[in-house]
């Protein structure tokens, strides 16, 4: 089956001059239609940058390499006009903070109608009817009245639902979610996750879900790709990765969960700090923090391999 999303050897470098920052370095990732993949990693690991590359949302100064194909379209080769048609129509995106991602001076209904009319045309009334229908789909109560609300008049959870409605307004094939539950409180988080999962099944969407929360990843994803310092270090079915993480960083992330702290005062942490992206070590970028480090790790970047025959891991000493 041809993949819906096919990212090959993606690299994104910010800044010029003596110290450019390689935010993403050689990421390769493919998603089947209807598949949900979680990109897991800490701040600065390149997960959001990878996500934004799919819509070419980077500032003009960023240098992007590699190829990205979505539903057979070469995203990197799109003309500005074709890119604008592609955004929101084939691939749409929901953001971390819905309060900032919706324009404060227009009503929610107007903003959804704008997106609808942008891609599907039609009259204002038709677009509004479509917005109302979407509001029902994402289960916003008293949808009709809510359409005329301004963003500041709605709660964070409702706004994120509205944001999802807007993202789905033009029947996209791919949904990108950039930590959509991070800014919400815990009870609302799970509702939004369930909603995303449900709509994903209903529409057969391919979803890339960026998160730093492994619990969230387990809730929504079929597969997970763990990123560290701009590279994918481990990738596999969510159950496999949670049950037996192969990469020491993935293991560290799993061990650092609050639920595992039990009665202890302190959480288990990964020693050291994330590396400076502008000054990465020559070998494995996790080497300075790794307990299993050997000489080879310090000189050579370990390639992604499948030692167990399932999933992939970039480590010389997996297990």
């Amino acid at each position: 089956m041809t993949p819906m999303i096919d990212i090959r050897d993606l690299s994104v470098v910010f800044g010029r001059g003596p110290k450019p920052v390689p935010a993403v370095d050689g990421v390769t990732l493919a998603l089947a239609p209807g598949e949900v993949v979680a990109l897991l990693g800490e701040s600065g690991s390149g997960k959001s940058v990878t996500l934004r590359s799919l819509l070419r949302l980077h500032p003009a100064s960023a240098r992007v390499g590699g190829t990205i194909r979505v539903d057979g379209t070469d995203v990197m080769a799109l003309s500005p006009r074709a890119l604008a048609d592609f955004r929101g129509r084939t691939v749409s995106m929901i953001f971390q903070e819905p309060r900032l991602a919706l324009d404060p001076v227009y009503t929610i209904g107007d903003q959804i109608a704008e997106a609808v009319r942008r891609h599907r045309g039609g009259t204002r009334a038709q677009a509004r009817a479509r917005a109302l229908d979407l509001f029902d789909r994402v289960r916003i109560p008293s949808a009709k009245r809510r359409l005329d609300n301004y963003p500041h008049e709605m709660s964070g959870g409702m706004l994120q639902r509205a944001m999802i409605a807007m993202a789905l307004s033009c029947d996209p094939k791919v949904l990108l979610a950039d930590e959509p539950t991070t800014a919400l409180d815990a009870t609302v988080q799970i509702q939004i996750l369930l909603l995303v999962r449900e709509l994903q099944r209903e529409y057969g969407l391919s979803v890339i879900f960026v998160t730093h929360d492994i619990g969230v990843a387990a809730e929504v994803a079929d597969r997970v790709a763990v990123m560290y310092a701009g590279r994918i270090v481990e990738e596999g079915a969510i159950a496999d990765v949670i049950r037996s993480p192969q990469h020491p960083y993935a293991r560290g992330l799993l061990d650092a969960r609050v639920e595992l702290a039990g009665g202890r005062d302190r959480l288990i942490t990964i020693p050291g700090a994330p590396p400076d992206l502008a000054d990465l070590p020559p070998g494995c970028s996790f080497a300075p923090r790794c307990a299993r480090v050997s000489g080879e790790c310090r000189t050579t970047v370990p390639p992604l391999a499948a030692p167990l025959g399932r999933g992939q891991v970039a480590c010389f000493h997996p297990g």
Partner: protein
Amino acid sequence: MSVLAASPPALRAERSPGYWRGVGSRIARDPVVVAALAVIVALVLMALLAPELAPMAPDKGSMIRRLKPIGTPGYPLGSDELGRDMLSRLIYGARLSLLMGVVPVPVAFLFGATLGIVAGYAGGLVNALIMRTVDVFYAFPSVLLAVALSGTLGSGLGNAMFSLTVVFIPQIARVAESVTTGVRKLDYIDAARASGARPLTIVLEHVLGNVLGPIFVFATSLVSVSMILASGLSFLGLGVRPPDAEWGLMLNTLRTAIYVNPAVAALPGVLILITSVSFNLFSDGLRGAMDVRS
């Protein structure tokens, strides 16, 4: 309603019809703003209906009835140094004073806002080019710049209004640029791009929609500044020429009478004060009413 007439067209086209109704009802709730608006409307009516309202011709003098105090029979607000009826001159003066206060601002708004928004949205070299040029003009104190321009171009109504426009463009451009730069980096601009909005849509709706309000309100507050500067230009003999009635000019010519009849001499100043305070209060109220978050 005058608020509607003043609404920027780009907003009116895309907003729900409910928006301006909301602004109207928020204005109506604030008695201070309503009062200020009433004063402005009254002043405009006074200017429009001057021939009907004025008891005498504004330029008809009488050598034997000069500098009469307030309350003199036939001269309810006294007479000036040439024996002309102050009430009539103040009523007629509203025409030129309001004209010079009001006309430069929308013109400057058009140019200043365009320059500032383009600079703010484009950033980089374009921004530097526009804003540094603007800064050159901004470096001069506004009174000095207005006087210098009017002085060079010669006195007269048109030249005075032109120089006031030039004075206001850099001020509006700077406000527009800073607001736009702030908005450009916000998430909803990225979100609009991610949903496929074309660059023109982003600028016209999401950028303009968020920056026009603040710039518009700032510009409204310039109306009073414009009136005062215009009065200043007339006072220096660079604006309106006698015998035309204009409040700044009247203040100038009556200055010699300030020891003889201070109350009459102060009257044009009082009107300038009332007008500029009204415009300021109204623009303050508008700032609040146009913010949907209030």
